């Protein structure tokens, strides 16, 4: 409760939380406000915004409702961003814990694999993965997670290396606990806080990567994505710049909101730590 209050004390955190909350509301409300197919033709092509109040943000090249696309795009962006970040954190935490706790050869092998993933640019990795497997929502999530798990893995490993020397880990061994249980029940939960602190950066990066993939036409073709909308608007950038600007602004606001809220969480926990 106290932590929550401290979180809302910083204006950045409040702004971030407000942006995120409205985005989540947008994503949740999309099928209610715009129940039809957002990719269906709704009116005349290239209608500018604020001319027809049944289509407030106008229409794109094919006459699709931009506002409906924006709402449905929020669903994809958030879903992919959160799912990819969750997958990356999960894989990273498991690999890092195993490497740090087991030590020796297992540590060596896992960390060299991590190195290998880290040396390949993550966007290139995602690009190659989607090109080979084919674009669909699950594949895009996996592709983004593939390039993002190395950071959490390194942080988790470093934390586990310090935790495994603590008395309570020795105590768990003394009572005869199975090593894997010690690693995942005693060590991993206590190594999580610094790993979770990475989550805002990873979510933001995942949303941007998803947009970039969609921009290149490698997103799920059955879903509206902001990256896809920008790519779509690019061809008429001079005559109808709003088609690229609207989803672009949405993207910027989302990433900003995630960063600010993440920063707020880190800040509020940091204050708690220095006080105790």
């Amino acid at each position, binding site marked *: 409760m106290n932590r929550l209050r401290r979180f809302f004390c910083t204006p950045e955190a409040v702004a971030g939380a407000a942006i995120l909350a409205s985005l989540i509301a947008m994503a949740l409300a999309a099928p209610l406000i715009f129940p039809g197919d957002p990719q269906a033709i709704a009116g005349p092509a290239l209608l500018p915004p604020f001319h027809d109040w049944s289509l407030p943000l106008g229409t794109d090249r094919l006459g699709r409702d931009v506002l409906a696309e924006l709402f449905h795009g929020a669903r994809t962006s958030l879903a992919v961003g959160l799912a990819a970040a969750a997958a990356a954190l999960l894989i990273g935490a498991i690999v890092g814990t195993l490497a740090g706790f087991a030590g020796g050869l297992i540590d060596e092998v896992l960390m060299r694999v991590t190195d290998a993933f880290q040396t390949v640019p993550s966007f290139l990795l995602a690009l190659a993965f989607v090109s080979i497997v084919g674009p669909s929502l699950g594949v895009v999530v996996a592709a983004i997670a593939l390039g993002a798990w190395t950071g959490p893995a390194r942080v988790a490993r470093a934390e586990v290396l310090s935790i495994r020397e603590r008395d*309570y880990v020795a*105590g768990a*061994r*003394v*009572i*005869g606990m199975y090593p894997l249980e010690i690693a995942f029940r005693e060590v991993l*939960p*206590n190594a999580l806080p610094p790993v979770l602190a990475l989550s805002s950066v990873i979510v933001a990066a995942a949303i941007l990567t998803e947009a970039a993939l969609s921009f290149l036409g490698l997103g799920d073709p059955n879903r509206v994505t902001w990256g896809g909308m920008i790519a779509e608007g690019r061809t008429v950038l001079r005559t109808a710049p709003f088609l690229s600007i609207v989803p672009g602004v949405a993207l910027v606001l989302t990433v900003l909101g995630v960063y600010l809220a993440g920063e707020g969480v880190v800040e509020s926990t940091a204050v708690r730590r220095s006080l105790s």
Partner: protein
Amino acid sequence: MTVLAVSNLAKRYRRGGKPFAAVDEVSFEIGPAETLALAGPSGSGKSTIAKLVLRLIEPDAGRIDFEGGDFLALSGGSLRARRARLQMVFQDPLAAFNPRATVARVLDDPLRIHAIASRAERPLRIAALLERVGLETNLATRAIHEISGGQRQRVAIARAIATRPSLIVLDEAVSALDVSVRGQILELLLDLQRQERIAYLFISHDLGVIRAIAHRVVILDAGKIAESGDARTVIANPQSAVGKALVAATPKLVRTSQEAS
């Protein structure tokens, strides 16, 4: 019949590139329901011996026989199963538990791991253990960080006796407690020893506490045994330089030994 027999135990570390012996040719025995104290200044190898006896670290040389079997020959599942008979209580009762655990979970673990009680039975066993160490049974639902240091050390003892061990290693187990709580914990340990016939390997730098609880004492210096013998005799009349220094460092004991002479 001995519970634990340690012979010629050695552990070397490298410090600043040079090897040094943390434990050097140490041998001792503990019988059933006996308390052997390991005393010595900081860095004399007391805690290293505790970790070696518990197989938390592996010795470079020597032999450890526990309950008549070669303890160093065990590994994997057979070692984990054997650990039920050989328990430990740590110095800092806060560091010795997972910071996220509740009292119930701490006591549940050994019962579950060694299949001592079924899932349905365990809450009763946990309540019985808490009562055995003089705690209220409603403490079970509390988080470890919510209870006092003395209560925590009682929970640590409850966990150690949960698997009915024949030997408990107490590594400075009362050093972090304040004086009044220390006395109560020592009483509890003596009471448990009388009733359950548990042997203690009691590690401490405090000769006052050792005299109160130990039958025999081994005084260590730089990893070697400096002297050993009956606890009261050794403390009343230490022969080694380290023994004399330790006695001199305990003001109350100096006075009593002067009165005795």
